[in-house]
């Protein structure tokens, strides 16, 4: 039996070890080793999961572990994973390793930096394995404040404003989540006036539709803020652009996924009837985010802003997939989460690495970097190509699955939404190619760019890790489908309940 708590324990110990580190080298290596161990643990988990499933275990959650925490309120420490969580855990692990590698040359306050990064990842891991709403919320909030500090202390530009905005908006989102969770909790009478936070138990209780109609928006919008749901996305551009490289990677790669995962695992899963009722709103907002984000990206002059807005657009696909409520679309949403996490981490990573060398992120001031920084520029282009949904990269698989799933909804409204979403891939191509064409291709814009050095080994390692992960999904999407198919089916059975009762 696999003990999931180790996934929390490893980062925790790493964090403590980081605090004890005496010099920069020690700290870095401790953080790196911890995160690599975590990645290995994640991979081991993946295999033991597949083994369990292959052995015919059809339980919804595997490797469950529960113990009472606050018994008076029936709060439990209850963890368990299914394929979706494992995908998220692996994503997190990969991005963390890459983030740490890319931050290798952090100059100031090493200890604090790596401590916060590990802490942030701890929040994400905990969130993904929690099956108790309270615990889940605990980890969700745990992942907020490190971001504030990471941006505020090591950021650039208008960092204080951005960090504050990010923290407040995310906390605003989690405030909504909190109210939603409590409302859910108090609507789950499991006998003798005892309520439960247990996600699985709640899913088996049918909360009155009327109540769901109030709770669902709270939960969905609350989590939606994390995943940059239009119009609550404005933390993302400012936050991403001010954040240090690793923090941007985490923010876009992991943090935004917390929201998507929550929308799926909590809001939609627990409130299937309401999800069906609100489907059109979600689709509307998601489509708006996709199109709007894409066009807003088109107008950006700063590379990080560009990628941030494009994240808004891409995360719209996640929400679109969830909002469409078909199995294929939801699978697509999950893949999109993983894919976007990897790809945007790579993108932010490469932007950060370029910035470190050129000291500008303005597209207009860059140019011809392919000549002097071939490796980094290639990474940049690969990230861009993944972003524009090129086959062979993960983005393509995810987007196509979402489109396919979305098209299964025959209503005209959904069709138009899907077509608009499809149309965004054209706009994506435009902005990606504009950026790539101007910044890494073309003549060398600045004499100083000639004296820069290409990637260090850590940076190469990080980039290659991410690229391999992206390609492994892009080339062989079947494994990730195998991973999440059964679990999506189980989720769909619950969501189908919502459909049949309508």
């Amino acid at each position: 039996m696999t003990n999931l708590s180790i996934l929390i324990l490893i980062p925790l110990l790493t964090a403590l070890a980081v605090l004890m580190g005496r010099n920069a080298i020690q700290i870095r290596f401790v953080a790196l080793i911890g995160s690599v161990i975590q990645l290995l643990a994640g991979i081991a988990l993946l295999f033991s999961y597949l083994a369990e499933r292959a052995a015919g275990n059809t339980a919804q959650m595997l490797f469950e572990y529960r113990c009472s925490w606050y018994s008076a309120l029936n709060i439990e420490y209850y963890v368990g994973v299914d394929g979706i969580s494992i995908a998220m855990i692996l994503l997190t692990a990969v991005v963390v390793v890459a983030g740490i590698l890319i931050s290798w040359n952090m100059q100031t306050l090493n200890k604090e930096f790596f401590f916060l990064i590990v802490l942030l990842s701890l929040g994400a891991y905990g969130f993904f394995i929690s099956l108790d709403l309270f615990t889940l919320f605990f980890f969700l909030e745990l992942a907020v404040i490190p971001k504030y500090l990471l941006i505020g202390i090591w950021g650039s530009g208008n960092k204080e404003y951005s960090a504050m905005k990010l923290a407040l908006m995310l906390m605003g989102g989690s405030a909504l989540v909190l109210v939603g969770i409590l409302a859910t909790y108090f609507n789950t009478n499991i006998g003798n006036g005892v309520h439960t936070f247990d996600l699985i138990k709640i899913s088996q209780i049918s909360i009155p539709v009327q109540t769901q109609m109030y709770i669902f928006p709270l939960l969905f919008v609350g989590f939606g803020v994390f995943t940059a749901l239009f119009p609550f996305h404005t933390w993302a551009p400012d936050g991403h652009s001010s954040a240090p490289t690793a923090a941007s990677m985490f923010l876009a790669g992991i943090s935004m996924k917390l929201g998507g995962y929550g929308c799926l695992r909590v809001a939609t899963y627990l409130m299937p009837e309401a999800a069906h009722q609100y489907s059109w709103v979600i689709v509307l907002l998601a489509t708006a985010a996709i199109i709007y984000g894409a066009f807003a990206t088109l107008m950006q002059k700063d590379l990080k802003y560009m990628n941030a807005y494009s994240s808004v657009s891409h995360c719209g696909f996640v929400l679109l997939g969830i909002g469409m409520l078909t199995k294929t679309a939801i699978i697509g949403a999950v893949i999109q989460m993983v894919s976007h996490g990897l790809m945007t981490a790579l993108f932010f990573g490469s932007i950060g690495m370029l910035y470190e060398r050129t000291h500008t992120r303005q597209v207009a001031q860059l140019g011809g970097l392919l000549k002097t920084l071939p490796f980094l520029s290639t990474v940049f282009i690969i990230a861009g190509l993944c972003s524009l949904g090129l086959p062979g990269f993960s983005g393509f698989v995810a987007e196509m699955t979402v489109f396919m799933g979305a098209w299964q909804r025959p209503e005209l409204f959904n069709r138009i939404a899907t077509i608009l979403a499809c149309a965004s891939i054209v706009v994506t191509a435009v902005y990606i190619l504009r950026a790539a064409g101007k910044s890494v291709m073309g003549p060398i814009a600045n004499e100083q760019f000639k004296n820069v050095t290409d990637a260090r080994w850590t940076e190469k390692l990080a980039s290659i890790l991410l690229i391999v992960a992206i390609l492994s999904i892009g080339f062989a999407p079947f494994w990730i489908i195998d991973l999440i198919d059964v679990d999506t089916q189980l989720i769909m059975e619950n969501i189908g309940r919502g459909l049949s009762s309508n």
Partner: protein
Amino acid sequence: MGIEFFILMKSEWALMLIIFILLIIKVNGTYQDNAKLLLFTNILLALNFMLGFVSNQSGMLFNSMFHTNSLIAFEKNILNFATLIISLQAYTWLKNHKHMLEYYMLLLTTLLGMFFMISSGNFLMFYLGLELSAIPLAALVNFDLDKLKSSEAAMKMVLLSAFASGIMLFGISMIYGTTGSLNFAELPALITGSHLQILTLIFIFTGFAFKLSVVPFHLWTADVYEGAPVSITAYLSVVSKAAIVFVLISTLSPLFAGLTTVWYNILFISIILTIIVGNLFAIRQQNIKRFLAFSSIAQVGFILLAISAGTALSNTAAIFFLIVYTLSNLGVFGVIALVSDETGKENIDDYKGFYKTNPALGWVIALSLFSLAGIPPTAGFFGKMFLITAGASKGSYILVGIAALNMVVSLYYYLKIVKTVFIDPNEEPIVPIKTNMYLKLSLGVCMIGIVITGFTSGLYDYIYLLFRL
């Protein structure tokens, strides 16, 4: 009268003993060294705190004027603990203070008053306890004798508290008139809800509200907190408040059981006003003590949220939060006290770049503020969650929503301080400050408490157990 008399009143006896020991030392007038005496006093207080764990029995004395049980003993010990921490943190200030012994005598007298108040079985004892805790406190506020602000704060406090207790007394007299009893045990059955009694309820509530700094009865708070010596500010914001909350939970809420609707409505309005106004004012503060005043006002709103639900579970949440609040608030106050005593700086802007020069203290501030803001993994998160859960159990999601959104606003100003400490550059930051053993001890206790109180459910379960006894 027997041994029971001493055991039941052991906390009070212990306090009085300490007061008189100090009085004797003072009267003898032979001591030279504040430092040694401080060590002695702190040891006495620590012993007092330990005594709080010993043989807690339930019982009544003096014709039910005084009653106690394990919960009350626990509550008293929370106050003992807070007082001990405050005393430890006051070391730097008291080391060279002329009236060190008087400080302790007055402080412990007020603590004694609170004990009597918590243990009170009727309005007379309650009133006496209240005044016993209020009047010497006003004197203590004035203890920075050569500081103008200190006097002004004391004046504001003494006048307004007299005014407030006058109004409350009028209410008590009307309770007496309409029921013929002052005894808490008898009263609930006699209160029927005539208009005069509702007026009475409100008058009495205003007295509580004044002490608790519930909006709109809070206006004295900020001025007094700003003017008072840091250690007294900490005492006001932690001990004084906690005592009133305990009374509110154990006495006042049951008292007006017959007037549940009105009682809840009053709390409803108060909670909304308190949380919102507290936050709105906290945003704009420049002085860190003043800032903490408003932040504590907002926190009180959250506590009231739990109290409004009125179940054992919600009361547990309130008390649990109070403990967390005590730890967190004292964490900040410890640092502020040190900085204020060493450099005289009390403005938020003075703390710019504080982390660069005093990293450990910077983390203490950050951790404490996160706990106050309710950020995991600190205990504050759990405290806030339980408060809000308690509020939600009443089914009033308007309140819960307002509370949740105000957590966001409060996060803003807490983060602003964190930003000041960690991020803002400063040409002349506060110089590296040497901490003394007492302060280290107190801050260490607070930080450990902040980190572990939430994760281990033991404390919470214990309080809940006390409520169900």
